[in-house]
């Protein structure tokens, strides 16, 4: 009929697509936010402690070899330290990347695929890392003695 109606007819109902898709209330994001800060503070101690002991103390970075690592993991203190660092860094890092995916992926499918890959990577690293820390053998039989830590007797 008139120019006006023709123009209006072309435009979709302006309201429908903009409604927030669903209400998602709950404390999940609150805890996640607090966890990022709490784990950040603990990681600060763990990571810089780790760097200091590995790179600065004694001969520093030149002392790192199989024997050095094996020696550390023979002590329950360093096992717990590294385990905590692994788990906290992985949960913290994964949650951080989850945030970044939420912020940048515009389509639900992209978002889903990226998060799937992220959680898969998380599972692989955490399982492998935990396994190594607990099943690590400091004195594998049949290895040349000069490569092994001093307490290996075999």
């Amino acid at each position, binding site marked *: 009929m008139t120019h006006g109606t023709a123009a209006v007819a072309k*435009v979709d109902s302006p*309201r429908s697509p903009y409604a927030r*898709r669903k*209400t*998602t*209330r709950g404390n999940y994001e609150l805890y996640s936010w607090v966890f990022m800060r709490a784990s950040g503070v603990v990681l600060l101690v763990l990571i810089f402690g780790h760097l200091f002991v590995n790179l600065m103390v004694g001969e520093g970075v030149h002392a790192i070899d199989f024997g050095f690592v094996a020696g550390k993991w023979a002590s329950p203190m360093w096992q717990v330290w590294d385990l905590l660092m692994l788990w906290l860094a992985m949960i913290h890092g994964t949650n951080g990347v989850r945030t970044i995916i939420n*912020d940048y992926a*515009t389509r639900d499918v992209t978002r889903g695929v990226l998060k799937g890959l992220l959680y898969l990577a998380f599972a692989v690293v955490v399982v492998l890392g935990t396994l190594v820390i607990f099943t690590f053998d400091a004195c594998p039989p049949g290895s040349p003695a000069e490569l092994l830590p001093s307490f290996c007797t075999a």
Partner: protein
Amino acid sequence: MTATLEAPAPAAGEIPSFTVTLRVRRFNPEVSDEATWQDFTVEAHGTDRILDALHKIKWDEDGSLTFRRSCAHGVCGSDAMRINGRNRLACKTLLKDVNPDKPITVEPIKGLPVVKDLVVDMEPFFASYREIMPFLITTGNEPSKERYQSPEDRARFDDTTKCILCAACTSSCPVFWTDGQYFGPAAIVNAHRFIFDSRDEGGSQRLEILNDKEGVWRCRTTFNCTEACPRGIEVTKAIQEVKRAMITRAF
């Protein structure tokens, strides 16, 4: 500022003029689905604002240029736009303050659907605003006189009473740009205005509403909103205060 008498002064009341180029983002869905840039060169004075230049274009050069404005004095919140990449009110931005030596880009604010040229559909923005229930909530009988409040209690939320709902903050937020699901700074600012009002009793309801996946926790503290707000509201600070209120409530 008072004019100083330094020779050779222009004739009384006369202000020096210069030419300025406005590079305007044009969009007309009846003509094309693509938005395009169009340059307009106008004669302007040192006291002119972006809005004056847009008026000159619309009135003297191209009547089809479409933008919103009402008060023209920074009160109604109609003319937020992206000027040289920053969200500003066209009526509060002097040309001389945004380097008129180079073309000044003028775009619609980001993240909201463009209707035509500089006009966006504000409905998603107001939908979030309505969700936080921007009105006084009380229980019990209506008092027969005014509800008293101490100056200290009033000062608690003074900053967030200044909002004019221009959407400059929400449309400057990268989290909002992604999918428009985030409540956005303006909704949180207006919730803050009631959450911290001693007369209001709907605070925990509003905290509950903003404790959503798309609520305050999506804020990444980029400060774009504080930088954009034409009212000088400390938007990011208000958001953090709401976060803190939620955390004290949860633990």
